[in-house]
């Protein structure tokens, strides 16, 4: 234990928290947008995975980072359109559709990977590009803080920026207002002439784009290759983070940081004499605990509300 504390309080650990939080944060923001519109996006896991692969393949073929990232985003949008079509038009259960999407991505990525790289496990034979890391002038010269905040992948900064942008979008723009109205009381939106389905389509597309960015980060930043099932449940963790963050961008950001912390912790603890399995369990156990604590709080709130009324 005494070995652990200095690690946790080191700047490199704080740096790595931000690094591992990035994909979870993208996915959590994606979860917020769709959830606000009243459509739960269980397919985030699969969307991220597919986007991660498409980022690698397209950047390898075009040798362009930008096209790689854009392809990943486009993949995310396309897959969420499929999800939207089946659940909103054909009225499939959205949870089952999301699960189907995940199963499809899990196998489909391996299929494409094999076609593109003749390998079913990892994409190292592809010369894919990586989104560069940048050090921010001024900030990088601040002691401590500079080491934590500077020198990250561009997408990490984009994810942080997105927290702010999504907040603006949801709370300050007409579309954001309509998304919230549709998710909360579709009847009310309908009664003033807002098309519920159209808004939900748009929300899912934005959600897909964000998950696409998360996928791009996984394979073009976090690591520089694609490997099968590399998202490892981050899409699901994001759903929990969104629930814990009560659907607000800032709250969700904090929840994502907690999970990122757990993830980073499991990374550094591998060097200690803690059984690897326990270390690997940390993010998931944290998520379950978080979910339970959140649910208990919600429950108490409802009970209190009822008691106060009587």
């Amino acid at each position, binding site marked *: 234990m005494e070995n652990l504390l200095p690690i946790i309080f080191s700047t490199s650990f704080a740096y790595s928290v931000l690094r591992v939080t990035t994909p979870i944060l993208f996915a959590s923001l994606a979860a917020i947008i769709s959830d606000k519109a009243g459509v739960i996006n269980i397919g985030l896991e699969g969307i991220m995975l597919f986007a991660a692969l498409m980022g690698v393949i397209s950047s390898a073929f075009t040798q362009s980072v930008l096209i790689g990232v854009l392809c990943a985003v486009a993949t995310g949008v396309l897959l969420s359109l499929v999800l939207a079509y089946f659940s909103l038009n054909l009225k499939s259960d959205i949870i089952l559709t999301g699960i189907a999407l*995940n199963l499809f991505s899990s196998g489909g990525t391996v299929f494409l990977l094999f076609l593109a790289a003749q390998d079913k496990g990892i994409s190292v034979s592809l010369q894919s590009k990586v989104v560069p890391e940048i050090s921010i002038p001024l900030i990088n010269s601040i002691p401590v803080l500079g080491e934590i905040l500077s020198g990250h992948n561009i997408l990490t900064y984009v994810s942080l920026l997105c927290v702010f942008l999504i907040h603006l979008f949801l709370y300050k723009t007409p579309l954001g207002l309509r998304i919230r109205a549709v998710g909360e009381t579709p009847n009310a939106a309908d009664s003033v002439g807002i098309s519920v389905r159209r808004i939900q389509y748009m929300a899912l597309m934005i959600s897909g784009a964000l998950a696409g960015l998360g996928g791009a980060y996984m394979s073009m930043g976090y690591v520089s290759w694609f490997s099968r099932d590399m998202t490892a*449940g981050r899409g699901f963790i994001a759903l929990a983070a969104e629930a814990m963050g009560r659907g607000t961008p800032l709250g969700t950001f904090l929840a994502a940081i907690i999970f990122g912390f757990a993830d980073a912790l499991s990374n550094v603890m591998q060097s200690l004499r803690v059984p690897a399995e326990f270390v690997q369990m940390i993010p*998931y156990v944290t998520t379950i605990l978080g979910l*339970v604590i959140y649910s208990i709080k919600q429950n108490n709130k409802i009970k209190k509300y009822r008691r106060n009324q009587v």
Partner: protein
Amino acid sequence: MSNKKIETQFEIIRTFVAILMAMTLALLIILLVSKQPVDALTSFLTGPFSSIRRFGNVIEMTIPFVFSGLAVCVMFQAKQFNMIGEGAFYVGGVAASFIAVKFLLPAGIHPFAAILFGGVVGGLVGLLPGFLKVKWNANELVSSLMLNYVCLYLGLYMMKSTIRDPNAGMIGSYVFPETAMLKKILAGTRIHSGLFIAILFIALTYLFMYRTKWGYALRMTGLNESFAKYSGINTKRVIIYSQVIGGLIAGIGGATEILGMYQRFQWSALPGYGFDGIIIAILARNNPIFVPIAAFFLAYLRVGADIMARMTDVPSEVISAIQAIIIVLIAAKRFLAKWQHKRIIKNSQEKLAVKEG
């Protein structure tokens, strides 16, 4: 013809159309990516029947599919989206391996005890999301998805710290004693006596769902929870036991699979049977009677795809597209709904006409 018959017929047709559309898509993909599409297609579709050994592969794979399909059926019939089948299957395998390696029991009793223990552990794992849901209304979908990973790592740790064979050359347990393993029942294949356990569980699950008061209460809760409550059914209890039973069946499945198909415990990742169970349950319309057919079909696809991948240049994962399409089309309420509606109206009108005439 009664309207009910039309509905049954319609469900069958819908299933076939969905499968057909999915297969067509797979065909297109194969045509698109393969340099030897005819070979690929032949080995995919007829490969599984081309030898006893390969057909054996299909049956071998059907066995775990049956268990995971049944587990999902039970939970889905109670309208519980609990994905714990995956984790329960895994820990069931670990628990059975533990009994198999650690205890010396007579041949008849040894696998029985191991499988039973696997089931109990699986049931306990299923209990958790159910309990959290009833007690605090925690979403069982998210909690069970997370719990699956916990099952994996905790199971792996337990295995390593109790029954790991340091000389195995991989992460695995000691080799199971002869007494613990399920016997092979057909020469030339690896089909094992777990097949009988699977058949037994199809019957048991069916009986439970449709012939016992608990199964009845479970189905009514799933169909209409308000109605179940109004009728006096304790729906909270139903929600919990549906998930415990789901976990139990998956756990038994994991135990059976490990003792039937392996020499030692060597799963270092979740085997994926839990999610396969969802495909099977959807194909089988959550009815245990249809689970073996659906499980066999899925096993046939998988084995066929594997053969195709070995013989030709098409990777086996092409079937992930088939599976996804089947799930969403069958789950789609509007898929072919207009056509059915027309038929029912026509039927009703014909009936009226007969009466009046």
